[in-house]
């Protein structure tokens, strides 16, 4: 037990160290951008967080389907864990977006297509988690949340496509500097480094959260068994008396 928790602590420290290194790269190694200067460095975490959130939600989608097909609880644990972790990354996107937009465009929210779509994505998975808390029956909860989870993920491409189409009809400032702006080699490498660090973080968080879910299941089973034995003893005692 002690060895595994030491291993976990080691892994956590390593991941956060990598994250710290990626931060330094984004803040000091990456070259200065021509129009926005310093504030543009938010990009190195804003964009990869969105990509990581997508991966996390994809894992939830696959887990939901796997649960419905196999009905093995571990897929339900993976589904909820990945949704929560994905939501954390989504929150990062939604917080860094306005912080970036305010100095550059003067307003907190520009209804930029990508940011708006990410907001809807956030709402979808908040609903998913809320649904789970409201589904009391432990037999039904995984089934019905999986069904909603599948619908939510199928909606995502439709959301992104329709919002992008909508914004092209009502043009507004694009946070990421449009499709025309190229990205130089050093910037690209820093971006990929940050993405790698965030992916490592996602895996770390996912493992921890999955472990929590699995342990919850184990404690429930143990409690059930203990209560079962106590009830049996009570019945046996009554029988004799």
């Amino acid at each position, binding site marked *: 037990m002690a060895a595994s928790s030491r291993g976990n602590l080691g892994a*956590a420290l390593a991941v956060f160290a990598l*994250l710290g290194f990626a*931060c330094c790269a984004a*803040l000091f190694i990456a070259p200065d951008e021509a129009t926005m*200067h*310093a*504030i543009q*460095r*938010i990009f190195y*975490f*804003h964009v990869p*967080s969105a990509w990581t959130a997508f991966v996390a939600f994809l894992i939830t989608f696959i887990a939901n389907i796997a649960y419905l097909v196999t009905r093995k609880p571990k897929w339900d644990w993976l589904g909820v864990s990945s949704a929560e*972790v994905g939501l*954390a990354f989504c*929150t*990062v996107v939604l*917080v*860094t977006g306005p*912080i*970036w937009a*305010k*100095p550059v465009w003067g307003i907190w929210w520009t209804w930029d297509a990508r940011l708006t779509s990410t907001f809807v994505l956030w709402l979808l998975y908040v609903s998913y988690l809320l649904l789970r808390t409201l589904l009391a029956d432990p037999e039904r909860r995984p089934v019905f949340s999986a069904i909603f989870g599948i619908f939510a993920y199928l909606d995502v491409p439709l959301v992104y496509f329709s919002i992008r189409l909508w914004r092209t009809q009502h043009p507004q400032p694009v946070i990421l500097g449009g499709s025309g702006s190229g990205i130089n080699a050093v910037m690209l490498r820093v971006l990929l480094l940050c993405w790698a660090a965030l992916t490592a*973080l996602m895996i*770390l*968080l996912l493992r*921890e*959260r999955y*472990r*929590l879910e699995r*342990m*919850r299941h*184990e*404690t429930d089973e*143990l*409690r059930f*068994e*203990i209560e079962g*034995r106590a009830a049996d003893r009570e019945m046996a005692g009554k029988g004799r008396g």
Partner: protein
Amino acid sequence: MKNFESLFAAYMFVWAIFLVYEFTVARRVARLQAELDRLKEMVRHN
């Protein structure tokens, strides 16, 4: 550096969100581990 406060705030938020999440999960895991050990002891004694 122009807009330094915003840049700083953004990076602080990123760290805060991830650290808070990691710590809340880790704390719940530790607490649940203690509970799990307690329950396993109870089962063993029965």
